[in-house]
């Protein structure tokens, strides 16, 4: 399985995530919000795209929604957050088909389940 991680320039969670996912034997490719193109989902054979949160706003969550709206349905799109999101925002992401994953909850079993659901 191949994962694309879209990093946010002012966060570094993606570096930790990259190490964890590689340890889980997933292939990982890192993108920035500026250089990511929806066509990469098929061109780079990405099974899942994980968007890292932004520190001071909910821009990352909105970016995850933009990605969800523009890549094939079969591509999993997730939003990884460290800071709590409002229930309204969580619900919006869920309704748009973005899977949420709280970074604080991360463990292998849970992540594997999340990916394979």
């Amino acid at each position: 399985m191949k994962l694309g991680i879209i990093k946010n320039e002012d966060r570094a969670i993606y570096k930790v995530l990259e190490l964890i996912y590689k340890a889980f034997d997933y292939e990982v490719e890192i993108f920035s919000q500026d250089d990511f193109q929806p066509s990469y989902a098929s061109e780079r054979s990405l099974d899942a795209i994980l968007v890292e949160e932004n520190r001071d706003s909910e821009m990352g969550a909105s970016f995850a929604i933009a990605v969800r709206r523009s890549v094939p349905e079969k591509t999993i799109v997730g939003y990884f957050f460290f800071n709590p999101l409002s229930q309204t925002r969580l619900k919006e992401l869920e309704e748009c088909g973005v899977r949420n994953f709280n970074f604080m909850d991360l463990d292998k079993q849970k992540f594997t389940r999340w990916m394979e659901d």
Partner: protein
Amino acid sequence: MEDKLDILIIEDTERHRESALEQFKDHKLTLARNYAEGEKLLLGEGSYGVLLTDLMMPKGNRETMGPEGMKYIFDLLPFGFPLAFLAAKNGVPYIGVVTDINHHNHPISAAIDPISGAYWHDSDSYIYRVNDSRVGIFHAPFIEGERKDWNKVLEVLLK
């Protein structure tokens, strides 16, 4: 046709950009892939004799977007219209907005029928004057491979 034109093409679909490269070998051609790239070129120091732009394309960057706007940055939106007006504002003399979307397949394509005709035609019945520019809105003519025939559009604009 004039000898050598400085043509700007703004087009997000690769095969249509390739057909422009093939068809305009004898002109000076600049290519942009989305609204942001096109806007930057139109606001830059270069001056163009012709702008041919697709109708629907993505924004291409996150500039100005807040959390609400960010959701739509990859959506294909009718940026061809603001680009055409920007080009007219900046004095580009010949401007064409050219869509390959069949009017049965998208509401915005159907909505341009009254101002462009429902299908491609090579008359200048639907050419408009915006400032000093000749502006045409077109359902695209095609060459083989369902690629836009930019040259036919240019010929109508230059009539």
